[in-house]
């Protein structure tokens, strides 16, 4: 609902003009020298649509997997009791800040052992591993914040653990789960280093590596890099616009908190 009135809207509008300037610069730079030819070159390079599809597959799979495993585990660490609960939670959290350089060689070795080279799995599993600790942290916290009475009431009703999770707790952490989904989506969509290293076949490459194709040693064609970026980000922006309406339709409205 609307909270503040005209004056603050005007301020936001003025600031938005400043915010938009770099985007205009991006557009302007993407048209330099070759004009629309830059876009043609990107499309001609081939594989823009393919890479968008690849990005979508990789990202959606990762997001779904991360939300799935972290809501399960978050619930358990928050609401269930079992031996070594705190210790194992702490251990899982150590994955939060895994140093970037530390993972490359081990992941390469793992991919080689599992034979996943050049398939989606070569990056999906590493992404899940990299991004789930944060999801776990956020979701466990969300479950912690739920009022105990809810569970006590359901227990009196004879609810078992799965019902507690599925019907009592889960619906109430949708905002947190959406945050985890959004963060994981963004992290995965833009990730290019692992994709560059592990996905050599253009048929499976995601869209994040496309700008790099225009970056060779002596010949950095910046306008084309910008054109590639614009083209590759367009679908996500459109997605955002579309989902915004659903956001506003109360998809994320909590249970009258």
């Amino acid at each position, binding site marked *: *609902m*609307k*909270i*503040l009135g005209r004056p*603050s*809207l005007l301020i*936001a509008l003025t600031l*938005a003009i400043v*915010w938009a*300037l*770099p*985007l205009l*610069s*991006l557009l*302007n*730079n993407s048209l330099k020298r070759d004009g629309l030819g830059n876009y043609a070159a990107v499309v001609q390079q081939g594989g823009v649509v393919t890479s968008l599809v690849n990005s979508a597959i990789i990202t959606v799979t990762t997001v779904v997997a991360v939300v799935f*495993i972290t809501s*399960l*585990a978050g619930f*358990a660490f928050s*609401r*269930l*009791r079992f031996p070594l609960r705190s210790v*194992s939670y702490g251990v899982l*959290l150590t994955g*939060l*800040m*895994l*140093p*970037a*350089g*530390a993972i490359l060689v081990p*992941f390469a070795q*793992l991919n080689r052992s599992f034979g996943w080279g050049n398939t989606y799995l070569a990056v999906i599993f590493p992404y*899940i*591993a990299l991004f789930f600790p944060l999801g*776990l*942290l*956020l979701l466990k*916290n*969300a479950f912690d*914040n739920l009022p105990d009475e809810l569970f006590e009431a359901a*227990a009196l009703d004879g609810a*078992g*653990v799965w019902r507690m999770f599925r019907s009592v707790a889960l619906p109430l952490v949708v*905002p947190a789960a959406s945050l985890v989904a959004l963060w994981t989506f963004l992290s995965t*969509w*833009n990730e290019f280093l692992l994709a560059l290293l592990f996905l050599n076949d253009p048929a499976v490459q995601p869209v994040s590596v496309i*700008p790099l194709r225009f970056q060779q040693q002596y010949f950095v064609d*910046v306008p084309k*890099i*910008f054109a590639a970026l614009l083209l590759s*980000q367009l679908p*996500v922006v459109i997605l955002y*616009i579309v989902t*915004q309406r659903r*956001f506003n339709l109360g998809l*994320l*409205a*909590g249970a009258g908190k």
Partner: protein
Amino acid sequence: MSIATARRRPDWRRSPAAILFILPCVAVFGVFLAYPLIRNAYVGLFEWNGLTSDTVWVGLENFIWVFTSPAVFGTAVNTLVFGVITIALQMGGGFLLAVALSGPGRLRQVLRTLYFIPVVMTPVVVGFLFGKILEPNDGDLRNLLDAIGLGALNHAWLADPSTALVAVALVNVWLWVGFAMSVYQSALTTVPKELIEAARIDGARSHQLVTQVLLPFLRPTHWALLTLSVIGTLKTFDIVYVLTRGGPSGSTELPTTLLFRTGFEEYQQGRAAALGTVIFLVALALTIIQLRVARKGDER
């Protein structure tokens, strides 16, 4: 007679199914994270160029370097400055924008989308973009300033050690404000209308509504965003590397850029691994502190 002793109902909280709930996470961790983490700490104990089997045991020497090196200390200071600017502006700005743009209407929707667009852009390319914009001889910013008669303000933002860090932080804010805004925006949809109406009826002015009603209400959101932002800040690499490579003169050197150079240009993989391990421990400590503080806040 209390309910607990009246019937021996199986405690759902001690359900043996718990292990199934945590199994996927544990499995992923065990296979993909445990080995890299341990290996990284282990590599930190050697002098190694990252390639050959020529390794020299140096014990804690690399770790001592991490704690005594002025270069590393510099990155800690930079992280603090960079982090404070980024997090404060991003969260504060995100919150205010979410509030200002809350509500229906085309204009609000367009503006929200506009602020969100940078969030989905690849940091590497944003780095290229701002590198071009901030170029003092022929960049867009300079041309704009000249056009509106403020040419005197032109400065070599990224080349001057005293302005580079702030410049990079501001670019980072441009990149991320939309994310905080989006998060606050959806959190705001959970605010009950009655709460706002009641406050207005009580005579609350707008700024009081914002600071005394909305701000406290969204505490869980603040916490979640703060956690994400701290971790995000510690992991920042691409945007800084492309904009400044950690220069000039280390004024924008973050632990991640130093780590990159130590490992890949100096071929000192052992030192890099030690640095990485320390960064990771610091991040872990920060997160745990945040958890404790949040819990205390809840118990008040």
